[in-house]
């Protein structure tokens, strides 16, 4: 599995990331064995994915747990929107009258896991149409806005904002004060963003359809905080879309990585010294996560990783992968897995720009 260790510091990573990932690819291919192939075939995955999960988790027994967890449906979650309904209880009680039962998400004060469904679909109740809640297909998406820690006076950038779950959550945490600039490029997804901002009664957001890579040239270092919930392969939400078991090749991962690095560098550039950037994906692929953060941080001076403060017992970031060592600081990033935290596979990393 792990061959000769290749250890790098931040500055070396920048110059060598493509070499590093090529090396990862070579070592990964040479790690294929019958047991991994059998497991991949049993659960319907591409073999290279199982090889990588073994590398991340440390053994095939736990990979089986992960793959079995990916077969189980994720419990739905709602975040009650206090911008439209003053009392959280009011929305919950109204939904309970429709037959729903909930349990509280212990680490997010507005959110509930759906334990029993009611008579009307959660996406069609009067309460939903009135903007009473946002519907999630898992709870991990609640983490990035919380660790961003937006304050009411902040200027916040949501760099890939559509369809708006995290943007409306940030607006709620800011009590509709301050400023959020929400950008996204997809025309279709942008309409969903607008719909959600309007339905949820968000008033502190300016939505601009543009590539976030152009944000720094338009705004400079305008923002105190920024969230980049980056477009990714979705390797953490296989429960929701089983086609992801076979649709992403290793080359697709590398291509996603390159794009994510550009987006993250631009997002970091748009934040003032002393500011905070949260990078997240719904993927457990180190290529899209730790490698992306490592390269973006290496390209800019004065960025450090900070441990996210949230009431979830996050797994540490991966710092050794197929014998390639990444900077130790990346352990401060957080990961979730369905078989460990009961959440979708997710990655979050908090970065701070030094100075200010």
């Amino acid at each position, binding site marked *: 599995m792990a061959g000769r260790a290749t250890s790098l510091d931040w500055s070396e990573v920048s110059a060598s990331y493509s070499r590093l990932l090529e090396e990862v690819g070579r070592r990964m291919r040479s790690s294929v064995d019958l047991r991994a192939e059998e497991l991949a075939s049993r659960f319907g995955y591409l073999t290279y994915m199982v090889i990588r999960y073994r590398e991340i988790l440390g053994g095939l027994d736990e990979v089986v747990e992960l793959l079995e967890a990916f077969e189980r449906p994720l419990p739905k979650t709602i975040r009650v929107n206090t911008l439209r309904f003053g009392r959280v209880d009011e929305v919950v009680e109204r939904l309970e009258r429709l037959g729903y039962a909930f349990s509280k998400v212990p680490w997010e004060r507005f959110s509930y896991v759906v334990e029993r469904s009611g008579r009307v679909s959660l*996406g*069609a109740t*009067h309460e939903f*149409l*009135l903007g009473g809640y946002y519907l999630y297909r898992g709870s991990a998406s609640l983490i990035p806005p919380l660790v961003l820690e937006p304050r009411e006076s902040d*200027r916040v950038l949501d760099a890939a904002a559509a369809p708006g779950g995290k943007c409306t959550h940030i607006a709620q945490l800011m009590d509709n*004060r*301050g*400023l959020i*600039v929400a950008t996204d490029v997809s025309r*279709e997804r*942008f*309409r*969903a*963003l*607008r*719909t959600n*901002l*309007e*339905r949820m*009664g968000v*008033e*502190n*957001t*300016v*939505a*601009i*359809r*543009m590539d976030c890579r152009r944000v720094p040239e*338009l*705004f400079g270092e*305008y923002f105190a905080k920024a969230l980049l919930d980056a477009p990714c392969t979705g390797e953490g939400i296989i429960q929701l879309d089983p086609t992801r078991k076979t649709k992403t090749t290793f080359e697709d991962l590398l291509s996603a990585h390159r794009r994510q690095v550009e987006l993250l560098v631009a997002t970091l550039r748009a934040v003032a010294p002393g500011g905070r950037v949260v990078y997240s994906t719904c993927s457990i692929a180190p290529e899209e996560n730790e490698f992306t953060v490592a390269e973006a941080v290496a390209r800019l001076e004065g960025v450090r990783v900070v441990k996210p403060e949230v009431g979830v017992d996050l797994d540490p970031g991966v710092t050794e992968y197929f014998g390639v060592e990444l900077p130790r600081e990346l352990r401060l990033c957080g990961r979730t897995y369905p078989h460990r935290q009961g959440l979708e596979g997710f990655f979050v990393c908090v970065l701070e720009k030094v100075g200010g």
Partner: protein
Amino acid sequence: MKCVLGGGEVFAHVARLFGEEALGAVEGYTPVYCFGVFTEVYLLKEPLLGAVELVMRSGRVPYFAGLYAGRLRSSRPAFIPSHILVEKIYRHLGRLVRAVRGSEAGIKAVLYGRDLLAESATSCYEPVELGDVLSVVGPDGRVYAVGLSRISSCEELGRLGRTDTVVKTVFDLGWYLRGGTVPREVKYRL
């Protein structure tokens, strides 16, 4: 598409429709008018102004900003307020005006894009003008639709037949399910 910051037109419409007192609900907001296929009006709080000015100076326009106030028209009704604005005004006033309260069954029909009929109208709040804006409020006091009045006063309600239309729905919240992401945002069916 072009946007212009500032100008009091929307406030004049708010005062005309809901009374001078309603202006308190939009105090401190600056309007931005965006002219495209429709003239859309947004209301911005102070922290948003700098960002919107930067965006507009760069030759871009915001896709959405602040509080969506509604749509300006060249014919009557000259202004169709958004349900969010109407609800904000009702909260500020502490009472309903230009509204009809609908029964549970009536609200259900309205959310399917149908009009509110007399049999489903449980109460009515003046002023009401034929052909002008009238909101549909649910038993819970929430605004479920904004439409055009088919009656010229609340008194007329008692004289209508069961299936006569009271409010011709222009926008209802069911749009968020039916058409929230469709390419042409013809939310206001006029």
